[in-house]
């Protein structure tokens, strides 16, 4: 399971999971789940288009991702951002439909753009993925504190001279970049899953931002590795296992939180019991 073409899958999977964990931490923090879903899904239409005119699909992916990110950023300021995101998504998909209608032989292509072909990843794909991945992680690292403050308290950030809208736009661009590099490998739906489940689970286990970020990466790694292994064994798509395992991780996180609350409630109850003296009989 670890030799030959599988080695590529493990390597690329690791890179993708790390990026997803890091970027996904902020996706969940900023409530940017919808753009994180919309950008990759729409971008796949760009790949179809590029293919149609004979260009490298990566180019189409990049253009559509960036366009979506900028569109959501610009239009979202003036109207409801979630409605705008929906419109951006369907516009791109409709364009994709138009592209696809002009050609014939597409089914396997669509499937792999949506759900990925990580087991079939070629060596030549590794370097671009690694380079773009590194760029995304570095960008997040550079903007880390600004991202934190604008996510939590944008007015305080503004008072300190940090423009929250600029940071939002930059974040969307990083999201677009991470999309472009991962969609060819793991597919549009999958990258979204990795950016939501693991960070949401990680924040159940830790109160501190740094630890939660690390946990997000770890859980993403474990999820994807397990999914690759299971997919290899059963031949079923990786996407299926990633979806199920990340939901399971989140479930475990929720149970852990509930258990913690129950314990705390019990401890408070017991403490109160000890502290309250028995009530004296009321005097007549």
């Amino acid at each position, binding site marked *: 399971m670890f030799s030959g073409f599988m080695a590529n899958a493990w390597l690329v999977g690791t890179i993708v999971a790390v990026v997803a964990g890091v970027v996904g931490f902020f996706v969940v923090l900023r409530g940017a789940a919808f753009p994180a879903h919309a950008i990759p899904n729409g971008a796949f239409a760009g790949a179809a288009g590029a293919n149609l005119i004979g260009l490298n699909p990566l180019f189409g992916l990049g253009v559509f991702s960036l366009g979506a990110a900028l569109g959501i950023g610009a239009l979202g300021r003036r109207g409801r951002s979630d409605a705008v995101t929906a419109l951006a998504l369907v516009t791109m998909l409709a364009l994709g439909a138009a592209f696809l209608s002009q050609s014939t032989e597409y089914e396997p292509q669509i499937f792999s753009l949506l759900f990925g072909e990580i087991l079939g990843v070629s060596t030549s794909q590794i370097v671009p993925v690694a380079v773009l991945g590194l760029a995304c992680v570095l960008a997040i*690292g550079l903007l880390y504190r600004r991202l934190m403050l604008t996510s*939590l308290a944008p*007015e*305080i950030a503004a008072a*300190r*001279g940090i423009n929250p809208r600029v940071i939002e736009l930059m974040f969307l661009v990083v999201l677009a970049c991470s999309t472009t590099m991962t969609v060819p490998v793991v597919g549009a739906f999958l990258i979204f899953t990795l950016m939501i489940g693991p960070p949401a689970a*990680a924040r159940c286990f830790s*109160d501190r*931002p740094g630890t*939660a970020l690390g946990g997000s990466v770890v859980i993403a790694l474990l999820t994807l590795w397990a999914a690759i292994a299971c997919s290899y064994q059963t031949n079923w798509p990786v996407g299926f296992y990633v979806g199920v395992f990340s939901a399971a991780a989140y479930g475990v996180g929720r149970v852990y939180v509930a258990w913690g609350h129950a314990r705390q409630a019990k401890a408070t109850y017991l403490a109160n019991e000890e502290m309250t003296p028995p009530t004296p009989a009321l005097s007549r």
Partner: protein
Amino acid sequence: MSDAPVLEVDKVRVSFSGRRILDDVSFVIRKGEFTGLIGSNGVGKTTLLRAILGLQRVDAGEIRVTGAPLGRRGRSLGYVPQRVNLDPDVPMRARDFVALGLDADRYGFARRTREQRGLVEQMLINVDALGFADRRVGTLSGGEQQRVLIAHALISRPELLLLDEPLANLDPASVQEIVALLHRVAHEFQVAVLLSAHEMNALLSVMDRIVYLTAGRAASGTTEEVIRPEVLSKLYGHHVDVLKIHGRVFVVAEPGRDNDDIPDHPNLTVS
């Protein structure tokens, strides 16, 4: 008291949507002074604060913080918004949030040195937040969160601390605690404090200066200087009385006065 003023607001005029919100507002705040910006809702307090923060364009006049015009203020200004809407799920402890105040505008990951952690601990003690320092910010009560926000703003050692209606949604006990805390901040740490409020009675005992804002115009000075019938009547443009009952102050319009020119004021009784 001293020397160079920390904040100078000089004949500031702001209008938007065709309305003159602030008209020739001027006042000066010095180091370590506790100043209350008093006025009813809608009268322009938030606009004035935003102008000082550089978030609102000023049509005329000038604002200088520690002598420098806006745009160069950098660290010398701390800001505490009224509330921060945070989910209980957000993985950020009060302690982490305060630490973020040290260097939120710097680039790179945050690696906290021991010295920095010591600073955070000290600040948490100062604002009496050590008891809930390790709880998530989103789970704190209004008063608790207020203290964390103050610590966050103070830890970068500003010369001026701006607070936007900090007392508005607090219960009376918390109001007293926050006012006492801010008083200490002003006098012990020598940080100029400017907070906006629509009710001045909670602040009477601690305010060094008051800036009384109404319909775009302001009068500033000590409470004795400003809260007088002559001064306020001139400010409002019609006669008002000042009643002092049990240590509390009430600004009252003359009975029988035409209601149209009496602006809304919670302390204003019209019979």
